[in-house]
């Protein structure tokens, strides 16, 4: 295995990880399914590219602007759709993602469907890694804060949380905006990694991919999302030797894991120092007392 090749996969995993983190907050912690996150990625990607190319902003600042643009778009969309419940919200986001892509297809300023080549290559493993770490730490603190707890309450029982005085709409909105911000930054990194943008890259299939990773990693687990993003981005590459059966094997592997672990890879647990200690301790204890692990 060559480092140059591995590095490419790691960068791509890191970019997916960031988008998945955002979606994890919305889907995993607030309980809202979205099939339009590729749309927010597209907004972030195009805005960031405009900022670096036409306004000559430094890359990090441009990324911030891209993320904010996506968050702003989500604000407008959230106002209109967040009152929808369950499946209806899901369908609204689905339409939204496609709408953003089709609008970009028509905007000739960005090259339309033919794409936009010549975007400077600013994304490196280092800056992706740093942004990922910041993203994970921020999300971890957010989840443990009052805001995070309120979001989880909404996921568990929306009506009850409203009764105890949580402003459900406001917290859904916050969750959606932060989630769009993450997706926007991920989009910006993506464009500056490939050096080329085309609306085709942000098709519904990209949104579904992100949602699959969140569910695969385990709903309501940051470490699960991170692990899932890395595994599911690297898996198709690892399966290259299967030639044209590659994606069939990929699909089969995902199905197999979902059957064997319906709660996802991490299933709501987090990888923290304390949890690792507990986990190891359990094994030690088990060996001493010869207890079986069967059942849950």
């Amino acid at each position, binding site marked *: *295995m*060559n*480092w*140059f*090749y591995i590095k*490419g*996969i790691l960068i*791509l995993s890191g970019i997916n990880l960031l988008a998945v983190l955002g979606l994890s907050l919305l889907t995993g912690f607030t309980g809202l399914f979205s099939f339009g996150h590729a749309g927010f990625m597209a907004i972030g990607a195009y805005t960031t590219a405009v900022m670096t190319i036409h306004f000559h902003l430094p890359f990090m600042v441009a990324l911030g602007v891209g993320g904010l643009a996506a968050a702003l778009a989500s604000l407008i969309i959230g106002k209109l759709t967040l009152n929808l419940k369950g499946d209806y919200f899901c369908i609204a986001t689905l339409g939204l993602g496609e709408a953003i*892509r*089709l609008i970009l*297809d*028509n905007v000739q300023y960005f090259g*339309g*469907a*033919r*794409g936009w*080549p*010549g975007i400077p*290559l600013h994304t490196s493993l280092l800056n992706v890694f740093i942004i990922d770490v910041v993203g994970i730490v921020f999300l971890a603190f957010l989840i443990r804060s009052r805001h995070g707890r309120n979001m989880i309450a909404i996921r568990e029982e929306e009506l009850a949380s409203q009764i105890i005085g949580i402003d459900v709409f406001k917290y859904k909105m916050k969750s959606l905006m932060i989630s769009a911000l993450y997706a926007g930054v991920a989009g910006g990194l*993506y464009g500056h990694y*490939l*050096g*080329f943008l*085309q*609306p*085709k*890259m942000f098709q519904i299939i990209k949104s579904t991919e992100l949602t699959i990773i969140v569910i695969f990693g385990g709903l309501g687990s940051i470490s699960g999302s991170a692990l899932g993003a890395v595994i599911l981005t690297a*898996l*198709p*590459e*690892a*399966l*290259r*030797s*299967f*030639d*044209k059966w*590659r*994606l069939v*094997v990929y699909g089969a*592997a995902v199905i*197999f*894991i979902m059957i*064997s*672990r319906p709660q996802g890879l991490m299933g709501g647990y987090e990888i923290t120092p304390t949890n690792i200690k507990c986990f190891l301790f359990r094994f030690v204890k088990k060996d001493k007392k010869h207890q*079986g*692990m*069967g059942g*849950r």
Partner: protein
Amino acid sequence: MRRRIYLIVLAALLVVTLGVAGCTPKPAQENTAGPASAEVVKVGWIGSLTGDQAVWGQCELNTVKMMFEEINAKGGLLGKQVEVIGYDTRGDAAEAVNAVKRLTSQDKVAAIIGPNASGQAIAISSVLEEMKVPDIATVATNPKVTVVDGNVKPFNFRVCFIDPYQGAVAAGYAVDVLNLKKAAILYDVADDYSQGLTEFFEKTFVEKGGEIVAKEAFKSGDVDFRPQLSKIKEANPEIIFMPYFFKEVALSANQARELGINAVLMGGDGWPSDVLIEMAKDAIEGSYIVNHLDFNDPEVQGFKDAYKAKYGLAVELNGYMAYDAVKLLEAAVNKANSVDPITIKDALETSSVKGITGQITISKDTHNPEGKDAAIIKMVNGEYVFQQKYSTK
């Protein structure tokens, strides 16, 4: 207990896949035909083996493999046996970048053939430049594949003509030869190829004194074109330009005839396919196609028959382009007298070879084949009938 067994099986599966992935497939299978040779030169191919363009990608890879088997049987490139390594991109730009990274860094290929889509060909250029390996795209017709903002990309080449040329040829032929002055365009707004052809058809058609009476769009995946076609019918054009792929062409052509539109239909290189004739034989009768070659040219038959005999399938258009890409690469390697990627790249810049789709002379300034004639084909009784070679200045 069952859960534990599941987990163990799962872990075993993951380990096995990683293990399998770790070792690259053995080169032996590709060059069994030739004599055992110590030196092997690797050539990469990328394209869609999965996804909606898999038919074309598979045909390209088959062609490339078949060509190099023949070359190996004759003694190989500069006496070295060639190994073809093909990777799937599933039509995704990020996957194409991954595949090229793997080809250039891990497999250390001398050159890459493909991909067929412009979006992927543009995305991989930064990797090619970093690793200094030349790439010959097959059907990537977007001008920006080889030239961006007036600067030629040093490691990108192609063997097909470009969208502006194809659009201009279609418009030129319609006005000058067919003498039709009122055109309507139906195009796919979500497709880069379709947008490109539309833009340049419109430009040339208007320059030549024609008039675009209607321009209607749909998006990939649509199956009902009646609303757009009704508007086109009201404008009463003499010719309808349909620059998109055969599946939508078949549907829209059938619906146009249903609505009683009698205008001549015209399309680009997305049309030729047996599926089109099966689905819309009567509707496209008398239509014109701008194509890369004449399928019934005697010179083409040898390749067509050999492919059919080996794979039991008809050659798709991409097969011919892949054939020419291999020919061009072979010529460049012989000219460079080396399999070093940078030397091959320098030789490619001035290479000229007689390909199956015409004489391919790479221009140093654009890395495109210059002065390549387009073939105009007319549909007569469900057959592709060659009309003439046509070029426009």
